[in-house]
C-alpha cells in the first residue's frame, strides 16, 4: 500500500511516504529554537518533494494518514484540513493516528538502550507548564493497541508521581520529556539524551500504524485538543 503520512501537531512539519517493499522516505521541517512553525507553508512542498523523489504522483496514493494530536491549535487544523482535502480529492481513505502513539512506537527503538523498561510514555510539551502524555506497554504498541495510560494533559510533577505510583520503569520520549527532564527523572524514568531522534515525531511511524488502524471517511477524522474550550468548561460547570 502506498501511504502519504504527515504530522503537524508539534512545531515540526513531519512527512513520510511509505510503499510496500520500498524503504520509507521522510522529509521534515524542524524550526530552530525561537522560530515559529511553518506548517502552512512547508507541508505540501515537502509532500510534493517526496512524491518526486519516489517518482510517483498523487494518483498513486492509496491512503493518507494524519497525526490527530494532541498539539497546537493551528498545527492540528492545518494538518487535518490538508489531509481531509487530499483524501477527498483522491477518493481514498484517511487514517487518523494519535501523535502520542506514533511517538511512542518510535520510542521502541530505545530497546537497544542498556536499561530494561516495561512501558513507553510519549510526552509532548503542552505549554502552560503542562505535558500531554499517554503510555503503552511495548507489546501493545505495534498492534495499534490501546494505551494503559490514556492521553491527558497534566503537570510534569503529577506525571512523575504517577510513574512512581504505577511502579513503572518507563522510557519517556518527546519534547516534553526533554523540557521537563529534571522533574521527570525523579521517577525511575529513562529519558534518552536531548538530541536523540527518539524525541522527534516522525511520520514514518504513522505509516507503520496504518497497517493496524482502519482508514475511513475523511469527515470522521477530528483533531484531539485534549483541552476543552472555555464555553464548554462554563457549560459543564453550570450543570446541576
Amino acid at each position, binding site marked *: 500500500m502506498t501511504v502519504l503520512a504527515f504530522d503537524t501537531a508539534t*512545531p515540526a512539519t513531519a512527512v513520510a511516504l511509505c510503499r510496500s517493499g520500498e524503504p520509507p522516505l521522510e522529509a521534515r521541517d524542524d524550526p530552530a529554537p525561537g522560530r*515559529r*512553525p*511553518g*506548517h*502552512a507553508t512547508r507541508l505540501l512542498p515537502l509532500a510534493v518533494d517526496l512524491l518526486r523523489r519516489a517518482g510517483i504522483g498523487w494518483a498513486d496514493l492509496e491512503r493518507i494518514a494524519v497525526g490527530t494530536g494532541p498539539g*497546537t*491549535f*493551528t*498545527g492540528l487544523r*492545518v494538518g487535518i484540513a490538508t489531509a481531509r482535502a487530499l483524501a477527498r480529492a483522491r477518493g481514498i481513505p484517511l487514517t487518523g493516528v494519535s501523535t502520542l502513539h506514533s511517538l511512542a512506537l518510535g520510542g521502541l527503538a530505545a530497546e537497544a538502550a542498556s536499561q530494561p523498561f516495561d512501558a513507553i510514555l510519549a510526552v509532548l510539551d*503542552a*505549554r*502552560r507548564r*503542562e505535558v500531554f502524555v499517554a503510555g503503552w506497554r511495548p507489546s501493545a504498541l505495534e498492534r495499534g493497541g490501546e494505551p494503559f495510560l490514556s492521553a491527558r494533559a497534566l503537570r510534569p510533577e503529577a506525571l512523575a508521581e504517577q510513574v512512581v505510583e504505577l511502579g513503572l520503569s518507563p522510557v519517556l520520549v518527546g519534547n516534553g520529556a526533554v523540557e521537563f527532564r529534571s522533574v521527570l527523572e525523579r521517577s525511575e524514568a529513562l529519558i534518552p539524551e536531548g538530541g536523540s531522534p527518539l524525541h522527534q515525531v516522525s511520520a514514518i511511524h504513522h505509516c507503520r500504524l496504518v497497517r493496524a488502524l482502519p482508514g475511513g471517511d475523511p469527515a470522521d477524522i477530528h483533531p484531539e*485538543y485534549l*483541552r476543552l*474550550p*472555555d*464555553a*464548554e*468548561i*462554563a457549560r459543564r*460547570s453550570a450543570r446541576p
Partner: protein
Amino acid sequence: MRCRQETDDPRETEALGARLARALAPGDVVLVAGELGAGKTTFVRGACRALGVSVPVTSPTFTIGQRYPTGGPLAVSHLDLFRVADLAAEEPDLLGDYLRADTIAFVEWPDGEAEIAAFARIAARVRIEHAGGNRRIVEIE
C-alpha cells in the same frame, strides 16, 4: 480612555464597551481579560454594536476568531485565545487574518501580548471581575 467602574448588570457592561469603542480607530486591538463568565463577551458585544456590527456576537470559543461586517469599510474581529496555550508556538497567520489595518479587534484570553503587538496597536487593556451576582468591576487602561 482610562476608568475603573462597577456595573450593575450586563446592559451596563455593554454600555461601557460601547463607550470604549467610540475612542478606537482601525488597526487598534483591545485585550479583554477576566475569568470564565466574567462578561468578556458581553463587554465586546456592546463595543461591536457601537461600531455598527448587527450580526450576533458570541464568543468564538470553537473557532478562535470571527470577523464581523459593519456595513462600512471597517471590520471588527473577535478572538478567543483560551485554547491557544502559547501563541509563540502557533502559525503566525493565526492572528494575521484578524488583526489588520482595516480592522478593530477584541481579544479574549489575551496571553502573548508580544505576538499580538506584532500585528496591531494595543489601544486598551480591559479587566473584568465578578463583584457578586450580576455586578462586575470593569477596569480599562
